[in-house]
């Protein structure tokens, strides 16, 4: 657990970057600092590993004051990832990853073996090990940066906008892999971003900061969306927060109805089909919708890629209401496809049923019930 206790940072020029920050970043969880540019996120983060010293207040990690160790020793126990990765250009990828173990005096061979393992974990093939940073794309460099921060297996990680310099597609991949990795590793993470969507996606807990270095609100992503504490937070959290809040809403079980299906690779039966028929593969995983009738596939025609409408998204039973709503809205038949945890078809759900669930959840919320 990282504790900020009345931490204030005033720069020599008088700028108050962080003003009386008090909060806890719980062990094994991701705490996200989010807020507009210049609100003191980076300053707050860098005070944890003493890249910046606070003007007043204390920061403790597991009840130990960070000032109880010399800065360089403290930093070797804290993973640190920055926006442009900051890889050492003169070192190969593998030696970049092994930086901290080298500093700790770990045997070179052993340190490199561990580094190779980490590269694989962050999704880089083994032959990248002997390349130099200049031979990597931005996204790949960022992966190496994450691997480097993890190399000495620090319990705490500090990440300052690690994914903001890559394009949206790569960013999403990096975020997903990061969450997966965190699931396995359970680090205590402080993550800085100015992107509220990223904060909501990654955070177990979100600290919204306002310019001047005040903590405006500290809460779970769901609470933040449902109950912004003031006009500033509401404005910052954004317009479609009602829809995004559904991403955290787990309603009652989705009332599915069985859906007739045809198999991918077979042919349309001689008698024809309904206008929209769901296509599944051999393992019952939905593949897309098939259109029959005058403007669709005639009887006897193959059910192949060319015939398939793949536009619809899938909702998972037990997943969020947002996914369920989206499955309905994106389905050409108007029926949302619901799968079980293994991706096998469970049935379909109607838009009305989903909106009923949403409405009943909202009623519960108004009468005082909170969701998880």
């Amino acid at each position: 657990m990282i504790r900020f206790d009345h931490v204030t940072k005033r720069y020599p020029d008088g700028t108050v970057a962080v003003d009386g920050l008090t909060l806890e970043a719980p062990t094994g969880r991701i705490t996200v600092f989010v807020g507009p540019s210049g609100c003191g996120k980076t300053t707050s983060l860098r005070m944890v590993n003493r890249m910046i010293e606070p003007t007043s207040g204390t920061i403790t990690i597991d009840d130990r004051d960070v000032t109880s160790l010399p800065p360089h020793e403290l930093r070797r126990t804290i993973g640190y990832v920055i926006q442009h990765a900051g890889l050492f250009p003169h070192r190969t990828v593998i030696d970049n990853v092994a930086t901290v173990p080298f500093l700790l005096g770990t045997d070179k061979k052993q340190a490199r073996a561990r580094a190779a393992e980490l590269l694989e974990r962050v999704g880089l093939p083994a032959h990248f090990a002997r390349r130099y940073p200049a031979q990597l794309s931005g996204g790949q460099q960022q992966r190496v940066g994450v691997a480097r921060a993890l190399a000495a297996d620090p319990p705490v990680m500090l990440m300052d906008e690690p994914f903001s310099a890559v394009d949206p597609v790569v960013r999403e991949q990096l975020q997903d892999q990061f969450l997966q990795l965190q699931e396995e590793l359970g680090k205590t993470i402080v993550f800085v971003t100015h992107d509220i969507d990223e904060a909501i996606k990654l955070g177990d807990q979100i600290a919204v900061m306002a310019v001047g270095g005040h903590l405006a609100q500290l809460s779970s992503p769901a609470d933040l969306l449902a109950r912004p504490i003031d006009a500033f937070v509401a404005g910052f959290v954004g317009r479609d927060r009602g829809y995004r809040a559904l991403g955290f809403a787990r309603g009652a079980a989705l009332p599915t109805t069985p859906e007739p299906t045809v198999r991918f690779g077979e042919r349309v039966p001689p008698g024809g089909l309904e206008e929209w028929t769901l296509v599944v593969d051999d393992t019952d995983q939905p593949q897309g919708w098939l259109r029959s009738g005058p403007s669709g596939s005639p009887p006897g025609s193959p059910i192949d890629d060319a015939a398939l409408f793949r536009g619809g998204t899938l909702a998972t039973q037990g997943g969020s209401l947002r996914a369920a709503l989206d499955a309905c809205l994106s389905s050409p038949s108007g029926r949302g496809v619901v799968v079980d945890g293994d991706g096998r078809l469970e049935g379909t759900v109607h838009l009305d049923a989903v909106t009923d669930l949403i409405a009943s959840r909202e009623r519960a919320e108004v009468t005082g019930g909170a969701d998880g």
Partner: protein
Amino acid sequence: MIGNVLRWLNDPDNWNGTQFTTGIWAQLQTHLLYSVIAVLAALVIGLPLGLAIGHTGRATSLISGLNAVRALPTVGVLVLLVVIIAPHFHGRTSKGYIIPTLIVLILLAVPPILSNTYAGVQNVDPAVRDAAYGMGMTGPQVLWRVELPNSLPLIFSGLRSATLQVIATATIAAYVTLGGLGRFIYDGLAQQDYPQMISGGVLVAALALIADLVLALVQRYTVSRGLTKRFSKSTVGGAVAADLEEAGVEHT
């Protein structure tokens, strides 16, 4: 004329010397000796100073101050130093001339080495330096493991330009009665023996060229390929295939 120069350079007597003259080999050695001493001394002064100033960001005005030294007229300084220093030496020693000569050469070589070393350290990407400290390196570790290796390309270019300048300027040793390849130039001029004079110039140029080649070779094996971007075929060749493969994986 070119023929005369070639004839002069082809004469074994000019290379090995006679009982009346010192040969090219011997003068080459002297020339090289002065140059090596001057460059090494300049390196010993300029490198640590440049690293320290770049690393700490203190005393940066020293850089511009020393650069002003470059503007001093070399021969003038030499004569002045000889006038000051030579009277302190008596008897059959040429130290009174060697020391001023070396000082002039060192003064010439320090600024490019110093300012390039400083610039090299300054030019290290702030994100890289930040990461180095953030990983838990101490100040000296950041200097040796990150700033120095990343400054090497600039340090080498400073060293090479200092070396060229010193080898070319070491000819002035002959101006104050000492040896070196400058001997042929000054003697040739005095005796109106132009083939000898031109040959002297040609030899200086050749020496400078060879020295530069040697340093280029050292540079090649000292500077990380990550900085020179001369990546080995194996990683690049493999990289293309791997990138394709990876692109396929990444965008599914």
